[in-house]
């Protein structure tokens, strides 16, 4: 009898815990304004949206980015909200609705459908596959999407998507070219570099493959000899086997368009198989050197490099943008010593660009309709934010988070920057390995033939490179 009672009590307790956990996690990311500043009841509201992956494959990059973005919004709320007229006092409360999709497509679509009912002004989205999938839908719904990085197909019109920097393909080609010019060519004059992609089998993972192959064919500096794909969290056997195959093929550089967990395994593989420095590894910006160093330690991180479009806190502590990010983290963070990092900087930049686009749209609506701010907050649409906000960001310095801010999008251009700088691990430290350079623009010939990108020009408000 006692045993039966004990069993029942245990069963009920376990059942309650198992029911409570999913409920708690489902409730946690519910739409909740982060604006915790003093209540300002009379001020009008606008809402920005985000569908983010905080528990799936992109979590390692999304979490610090989101911390940066949320801290920025909290700071803005403390200033009284979005300062529309530039008098230093906030005029509009920015509400922030977000959903966590765990890199599950069905959850992504469910979140999008839920948010669509709110007629979003601008929606941040995560992962290239989902954004590629949603391109025509966002255009139909007239919702501008804002992404932290794009595969090249996301750039091609017609689309309502804008990106915080260049495309992954352009950045990949730029970094490979930098390595060829600065390191490989001087050591192997006249030789063509052999490049292999070891990346994820997704739109995001494959984003560097075709453009870098085309760039190599055009400039004659390198040849892409293999494109292989691993799991989103690669297992050690696959990486060791691929590296062994690459060794047989005489590969000089392995590139991956992934996040930091993949380069962590690849770098360990290169070092434990004694392939470094004959074979080196570079990856896109979402595998930053500082995170790799944290995971792998100095020995197996040595020689790693990645291009970055923003200032790097570990290398540029005195830059104004880094100081701003540090102030945000010190004020609103929870004492995480590893922040601000590169992704935190990107997160701040993302939210700053989004809110600035909304601000410009509000000013535009007031001018166009001759209405006051409250009416403008009611009337402003996604189309307004696209045309009067995102496409006019020229001149916006965005808190000095990178040296060449304010790169605007032309009518056909969805990139808000086109410069990079290579950052890597040398002697156990994160160091800047190159100056700022412009990434090659890799528009396919057939796109040009169709008349796309005729007016593309990324304009800068600062000194040219």
């Amino acid at each position, binding site marked *: 009898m006692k045993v039966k009672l004990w069993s029942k009590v245990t069963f009920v307790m376990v059942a309650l815990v198992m029911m409570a956990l999913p409920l708690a996690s489902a409730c946690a990311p519910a739409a909740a304004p982060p604006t915790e500043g003093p209540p300002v009841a009379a001020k009008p509201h606008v809402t920005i949206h985000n569908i983010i992956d905080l528990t799936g494959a992109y979590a390692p990059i999304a979490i610090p980015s989101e911390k940066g973005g949320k801290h920025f919004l909290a700071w803005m709320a403390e200033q009284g909200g979005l300062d529309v007229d530039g008098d230093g006092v906030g005029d509009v409360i920015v509400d922030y609705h977000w959903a966590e999709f765990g890199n599950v497509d069905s959850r992504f679509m469910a979140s999008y459908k839920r948010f669509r009912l709110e007629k979003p002004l601008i929606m941040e989205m995560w992962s290239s596959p989902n954004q590629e999938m949603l391109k025509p839908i966002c255009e139909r719904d007239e919702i501008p999407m804002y992404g932290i990085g794009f595969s090249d197909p996301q750039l091609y019109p017609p689309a309502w998507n804008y990106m915080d920097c260049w495309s992954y393909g352009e950045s990949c080609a730029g970094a490979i070219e930098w390595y060829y010019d600065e390191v490989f060519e001087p050591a192997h004059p006249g030789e063509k570099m052999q490049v292999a992609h070891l990346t994820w089998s997704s739109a995001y993972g494959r984003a560097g493959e075709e453009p870098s192959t085309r760039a190599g064919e055009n400039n004659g500096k390198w040849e892409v000899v293999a494109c292989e794909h691993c799991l989103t*969290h690669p297992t050690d056997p696959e990486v060791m086997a691929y590296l062994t195959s690459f060794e047989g093929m005489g590969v000089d550089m392995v590139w991956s368009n992934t996040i930091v967990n993949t380069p962590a395994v690849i770098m360990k593989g290169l070092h434990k198989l004694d392939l470094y420095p004959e074979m080196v590894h570079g990856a896109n910006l979402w595998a930053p050197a500082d995170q790799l160093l944290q995971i792998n330690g100095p020995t197996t991180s040595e020689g790693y490099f990645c291009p970055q479009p923003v200032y790097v806190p570990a290398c540029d502590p005195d830059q104004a943008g880094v100081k701003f990010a540090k102030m945000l983290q010190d004020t609103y963070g929870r004492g995480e010593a590893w922040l601000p990092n590169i992704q935190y900087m990107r997160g701040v930049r993302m939210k700053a660009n989004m809110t600035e686009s909304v601000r410009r749209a509000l000013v535009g609506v007031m001018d166009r309709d001759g209405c006051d701010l409250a009416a403008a907050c009611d009337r402003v649409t996604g189309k307004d934010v696209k045309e009067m906000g995102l496409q006019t960001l020229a001149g916006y310095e965005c808190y000095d988070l990178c040296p060449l801010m304010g790169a605007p999008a032309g009518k056909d251009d969805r990139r808000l920057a086109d410069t990079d700088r290579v950052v890597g691990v040398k002697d156990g430290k994160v160091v800047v390995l190159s100056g700022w350079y412009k990434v090659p623009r890799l528009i396919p010939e057939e796109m040009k033939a169709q008349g796309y990108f005729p007016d593309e020009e990324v304009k800068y408000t600062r000194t040219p490179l």
Partner: protein
Amino acid sequence: MEQIIKLIVLGLCMGGIYALVAVGYVVVYKSTKVFNFAQAAMITVGAYALYQALIVWSLPIWAAVLFTLAVGVALGLLVERLLMRPLIGQPILAPIVVTLGLMLLLRGVILMIFGGQVYGYGEHFLPLGAWHVGFVTLPMIQVYAFIISMVAIFALIQFYNRTRMGLAMRVTHEDHVVAQNLGINVKRVFQYSWVIACVLGVISGMLLGNIQGCCVELDVTGLMAIAAILFGGLESIGGAIVGGLTLGVLQMLTIGYLAPLMPGEPIMMVPFAFMLLILIFKPYGLFGLVRIERL
């Protein structure tokens, strides 16, 4: 030929860890007849427990390893007492489904505690570098992981063969009722089995976390080891070892020779295709016991 030999050697090194994971499944199945899907999650628990002790609390390596092993023991005791014992006498499907639920629960708890970040042990654990034997490169970290795995399995075999509890576990494996009639405390045997399986799981987790980094997706390796035990036989420790090593080699050769010809991620597909093939011809696995029942 050189390439094949290199891949086979590397595959054997990795296969050692697969064997360790696979033995964890076998230990529970042998005693309880429950197929423990949660074994995959034990790997993740082990990896994160070591991270917590070694990096977050900055404990010395020996203390961190002891802490992780203690987590394995505690987890085994808790799972057996809270989840499995109440299900004794229930249809076998019930505890199996509970282990599936437990796997998801542990995954969720880890996500809640550690978030989705990837962590690593830096250079605190097992030496780096490589040995060169002819044209074959032997990564030290892999060789040490292989040795640790084999030592753990050897210790388990000795436990089975040389201790009173090991004997009791073998008897329980034959028949629960007979074991009970012989005075063996079957519940205690179940408890030991779960504790041993969890400890083996956390050891695998420490080794894998060191090689691949700590993240919730480490349980994929645990799920892949299912192919190894079905290959070797659900009730055979020797079969699990052979299955694990075979799986490691098979994965290496798949990537070396099949991956360039196949789109996607053949590393996930090939082991299970192989497992299906084995099940067609040897439903009990290579070393599994063929049960004959009188009707």
